[in-house]
């Protein structure tokens, strides 16, 4: 498997000018390491302020670590190769309004291509392809304030796709959307994974989104608390709850059932699993 990105013992603190002389520097990231391979979907979870966005910013070189190393596409990220690296990945942020640069949908999708000096003809082709991938071709000439939040985020994804990135980062891209918008965006990401095998890092609070990932990284106070498949992660129920994270619905119900004295065989991530168990062991007996 080809490595796409990795962090090695990365530590980062924001320079804060505290009044007085309290020199307590809060580490936004503390000794973070992980590796991401081609085609993987990595979900990063953690409560507000646990360092998730900081991690994303270091990955795209908006900031550089105080110590440790960030590797992208097997090269160490530095100011020399920054722009080249950026042209190989895309990121979508939380607020749909504050990342829409162009005056219409197609202008916005073309923005990154323009910056990278892509010739006009190829640009037109790529813009339409990208819009097709997010199913927004009917909206090419729409202005942003006539789009819903979900549509704006899909345009943002198209803007990233137009560059044919190898890595897509979503920093809470669905958290300001209504359920329908969230659904739309998740559907698109799922589709992209299936069709072009895109590598995805998604920072999210949405557990159903986490369940779609191959691997999960749990952040707490700047540190990587644990990492593993969703199944492995959600086994650590008590630990997750102690840092204020939710559990998937089926898991919560299993717990409640156990508390009520119903004996269950295993841990169930999805509703289907739980229904099956209930059927086989309790109702069809």
């Amino acid at each position, binding site marked *: 498997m080809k490595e796409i990105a990795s962090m090695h013992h990365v530590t980062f603190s924001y320079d804060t000018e505290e009044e007085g002389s309290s020199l307590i520097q809060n580490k936004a990231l503390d000794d973070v390491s992980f590796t991401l391979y081609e085609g993987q979907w990595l979900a990063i979870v953690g*409560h*507000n*302020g646990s360092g998730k966005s900081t991690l994303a910013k270091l990955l795209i070189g908006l900031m550089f670590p105080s110590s440790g190393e960030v590797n992208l596409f097997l090269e160490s990220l530095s100011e020399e190769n920054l722009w080249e690296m950026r042209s190989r990945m895309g990121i979508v942020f*939380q607020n749909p309004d504050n990342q829409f640069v162009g005056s219409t949908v197609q202008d916005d999708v073309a923005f990154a291509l323009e910056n990278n000096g892509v010739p006009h003809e190829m640009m037109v082709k790529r813009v339409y392809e990208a819009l097709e991938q997010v199913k927004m071709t009917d909206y090419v000439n729409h202005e942003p304030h006539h789009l*819903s939040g979900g549509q704006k985020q899909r345009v943002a994804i198209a803007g990233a796709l137009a560059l044919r990135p190898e890595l897509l980062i979503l920093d809470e891209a669905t*958290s*300001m959307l*209504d*359920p*329908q*918008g969230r659904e739309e965006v998740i559907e698109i990401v799922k589709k992209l994974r299936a069709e072009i095998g895109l590598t995805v890092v998604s920072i999210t*609070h949405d557990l159903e989104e986490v369940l779609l990932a191959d691997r999960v990284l749990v952040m707490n106070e700047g540190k990587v608390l644990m990492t593993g498949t969703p199944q492995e992660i959600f086994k650590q129920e008590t630990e997750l709850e102690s840092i*204020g*994270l*939710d559990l998937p*619905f089926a898991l*919560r*119900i299993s717990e*409640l*059932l156990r*508390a*009520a*004295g*119903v004996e269950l065989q295993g841990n169930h991530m999805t*509703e289907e699993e*739980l*229904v099956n168990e*209930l*059927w086989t062991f*309790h*109702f069809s*007996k």
Partner: protein
Amino acid sequence: MDISFQQVGYLYAKDSPFEKRALQNVTATIPSGSYTSIIGHTGSGKSTLLLHLNGLLKPSEGVVKIGDTLITSQTKGKQLKDIRHRVGIVFQFPEHQLFEETVEKDIMFGPLNFGVPKEIARDRAHELVRLLGLPEDVLQKSPFELSGGQMRRVAIAGVLAFKPSILVLDEPTAGLDPRGRKEIMELFHRLHETENLTTILVTHSMEDAARYSDRILVMHEGTSVMEGPPEEIFEQEEQLHSYRLGIPRSVHFQRKVENMIGQRFGRIALTEEMLAQELSVAIERKGERPC
């Protein structure tokens, strides 16, 4: 104070080429002391309806009745201010309304506008900071130096501070993490009980609507289409689907199991706790019955 909408209609940009109808023939009642959730698809007119509750919008057609006060397209000035004192609205992303130098001053802004004496307003600010679980020392900080979750709480305090008897919430937890969301919802629930509030919640979360409210109002394309207690509303899955709405996960799960065992539970499981209880009851019953 009961609230009622009688054939309320509203048009944005009335009499211009851009006229847009947002509400049509809305008739509904919100009893005093109830916790009512308003649900509906995006663009169904929920926010527009809320703005009628304190005269920020006046109905183009029909009448909004709040206690003894009638609001029609003709109502003006003084009366509206009175209504605004009694009806507090927490808007979506309320932290965007913060502006004062200190948190204390910002919380006091509302009460002072409504003629509450300074000393009392200050006491309320201190009290609310405690109630909302914020550290005491935020009072003298600038609201812009706080974290997102803290800002949200301060903004909510700014509305609670003038002690409205009707509290209106437009998606108050949008953008918070799960823990923050839960804490805020629990807080409103507590306030509803202890302060005898009439609470009106606009939400996209069927789970929250089912868990916290005792009444539900469904909006669809500008009209009120269903009204009743959550037990009744969430029974009607088909109907809700036609309004592009779903049912709470627990009810969804309940239906799955019910279909599987070919038998209905005693009641609708509005929360996860209720679901677990119903399930265990059903399992027990199953066990008792000889095969």
